[in-house]
């Protein structure tokens, strides 16, 4: 017993000694300080506000479903609230760091890609099997029917006539359940950001249980941004048929029922740019040293070009897919997204000394 106690005491002394050395070492290391500063700024000024807007949009969605189903609001209003929730979700895509990126939670918000129209089929099965479903039961059901994709199906699918009272009554319990489910999911995630030892703290104070140092935090911020830029290409590439011998696949688009695919891509792209720019240049851009200003300018220009290409797409996606000129415009937009993606993935990552997904993307 005595020996054990003495060991513990010695260990404690050793730790105290190293504390002062650690403090000195950290004090001398300004790049780490700068990374911690940027990571903190992004967490508080960019990411947390976006998550808060998502929670607000989902609260409005839950209320909106109740109002629509009780006849206090019309379909147009229900659809507008859905579009707001969809946009808030799209803005989160480049910021999917931490709890929302873990445990398959993103699937619970949106089910895409949906190659076999599982959304349509499973919603139909569910309203038959559980006509009085509530949010608690829904949380235990397939992820396919828990989120915005199922909500969109109910509000937009051409086979459903919600003007028919019987039809509306059949789908309303599910619509309300999804609204509540999304609200509680969003609130739970926001809690995990704001809690003690939550994501805001983990992106601000180092080391912590998630990040050994601020460089790891910056690396993960860039990683999720690059992943999201890549997925924007996939979201556009799927309906364009880039993986299917250039045969357009309009029903493979995200949000094809509500025709929100391009809007969602635009919202995600704008959000990715806020991570790059930050508020008052306290974004990833702010980490580039002066000698890298050409790279910074190149990335600025790439975002600008991609936004211009998107703004030039003045017809709905399905129309654009239907003719040569439309497909060319979409492919040009795709190419501009590719430039943004590649610049982040290669040159920016290298300039910041960040290794992206060595095994995750190409493991064995």
């Amino acid at each position, binding site marked *: 017993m005595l020996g054990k106690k003495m060991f513990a005491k010695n260990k404690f002394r050793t730790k105290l000694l190293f504390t002062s*050395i*650690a403090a000195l070492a950290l004090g001398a290391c300004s790049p780490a300080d700068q990374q911690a500063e940027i990571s903190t700024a992004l967490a508080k000024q960019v990411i947390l506000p976006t998550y808060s807007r998502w929670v607000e949009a989902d609260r409005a969605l839950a209320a909106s479903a109740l109002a629509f189903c009780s006849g206090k609001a019309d379909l147009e209003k229900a659809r507008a609230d859905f579009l707001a929730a969809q946009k808030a979700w799209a803005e989160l895509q480049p910021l999917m760091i931490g709890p929302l*990126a*873990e*445990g398959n939670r993103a699937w619970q918000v949106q089910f895409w890609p949906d190659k076999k129209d599982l959304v349509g089929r499973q919603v139909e099965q569910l309203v038959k099997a559980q006509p009085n479903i509530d949010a608690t039961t829904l949380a235990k059901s397939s992820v396919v029917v828990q989120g915005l994709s199922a909500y969109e199906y109910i509000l937009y699918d051409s086979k459903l006539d919600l003007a028919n009272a019987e039809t509306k009554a059949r789908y309303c319990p599910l619509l309300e359940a999804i609204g509540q489910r999304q609200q509680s999911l969003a609130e739970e995630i926001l809690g995990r950001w704001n809690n003690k030892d939550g994501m805001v703290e983990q992106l601000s104070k180092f*080391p912590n*249980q998630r990040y050994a140092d601020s460089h790891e935090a910056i690396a993960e911020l860039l990683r999720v941004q690059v992943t999201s830029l890549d997925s924007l290409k996939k979201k556009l590439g799927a309906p364009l048929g880039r993986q299917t011998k250039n045969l357009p696949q309009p029903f493979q688009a995200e949000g094809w029922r509500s025709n929100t695919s391009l809007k969602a891509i635009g919202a995600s792209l704008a959000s990715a740019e806020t991570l790059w720019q930050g508020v008052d240049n306290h974004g990833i851009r702010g980490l580039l040293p002066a000698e890298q200003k050409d790279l910074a300018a190149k990335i600025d220009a790439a975002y600008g070009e991609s936004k211009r290409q998107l703004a030039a797409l003045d017809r709905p996606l399905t129309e654009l897919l239907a003719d040569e000129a439309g497909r060319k415009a979409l492919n040009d937009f795709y190419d501009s997204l590719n430039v943004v993606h590649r610049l982040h993935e290669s040159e920016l990552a290298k300039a910041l000394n960040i290794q992206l997904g060595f*095994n995750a993307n190409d*493991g064995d």
Partner: protein
Amino acid sequence: MVTNMLRRHVLGLGSLLLGALTLGGWTVSRNGKNPLVLSARDDSNGKHYAVGYRLDGTQVFATEVGQRCHDVVEHPSEPIALFVARRPGTESYLIDLRDGRLLQTVKSQPNRHFYGHGVFHKSGEWLYTTDNDTTDPGRGLLTVYRYENGQLHHSGELSTHGLGPHQVSWMPDGETFVIANGGIRTEAESRKEMNLHAMEPSLVLLKRDGTLISKETLSQPMNSVRHLAIASDGTIVAGQQFMGDAHEPAELLAIKRPGQPFQAFPLEAEQRDAMAHYTASVAVHNDLRLVALTAPRGNRFFIWDLDTGAVRLDAPLPDCAGVGAVKDGFVVTSGQGRCRLYDCRSASISAQPLDLPAGLWDNHLHLKLA
């Protein structure tokens, strides 16, 4: 219940940092030993290396090699190891572990390539690697080499009784192979799956003369059995990679206890869903009876009690790669961030970042407990 079973324990802010700084002295004083971490690693320019580092961060060697390697197979008595080419590589490298000297470049046979794994027989005279017969893409082979006068000489082949074999290990007798047949056909110079809808993954036990002892499967044909860890009591743990739909639940960790069938390890949905259908490495800690698993696509590292199945750790770790047992717990490398030591001696598992170079570690590490 899930939350009750789940124990996420990590050190407070201060001690996490302190751990990194005190680790060298701590390891030496506690164990009298400082294990050598052997692994394949890249540099940021994409060059490939066979590396050996002491746990305290001291580099013993970093030998540039032509092809990217995967697992490391240590000789049972001599200070040498084979760094095995990752699929579909054709060169493995026999390295002197004292100074990193390249002793031999072992080329795969015509119409064969390596799958990244192998084993040395306990006699030190025989080495076996999992190989692909590219004339019948995916037909699994154990290529046999004789180790003589410091060199490996091709000597023959055995069938793995399955497709696309990946990791091979020994049962505790050192005479019985355990083979993870991934079930996927791929061609020479390719990593592209040819038979996703006709996969045949299996776990095979084989005598050293090639006689099949058993061949077992899990419930999902698209669940590729890939990585193995064998406990000293003969318990086999296998890590899977699921090739089916992204939202479908899969048996990503499986177990074969002595005398029992090969079956899913009882995962909670929360851990299973966090793996993103991809596991990289499994390891068993024999003294503490723990099993550890890296899931680089889910960016998560897990530890369970091997006997009760209770979750001991479910922690974020970006692109976590290789894992191996040391006296007090597990060492984990990462393709993206810093490597860590998880001290598992008490109920609360604590993490300490290691002073090893950060990132670019391949999916397997081997610890030489000198």
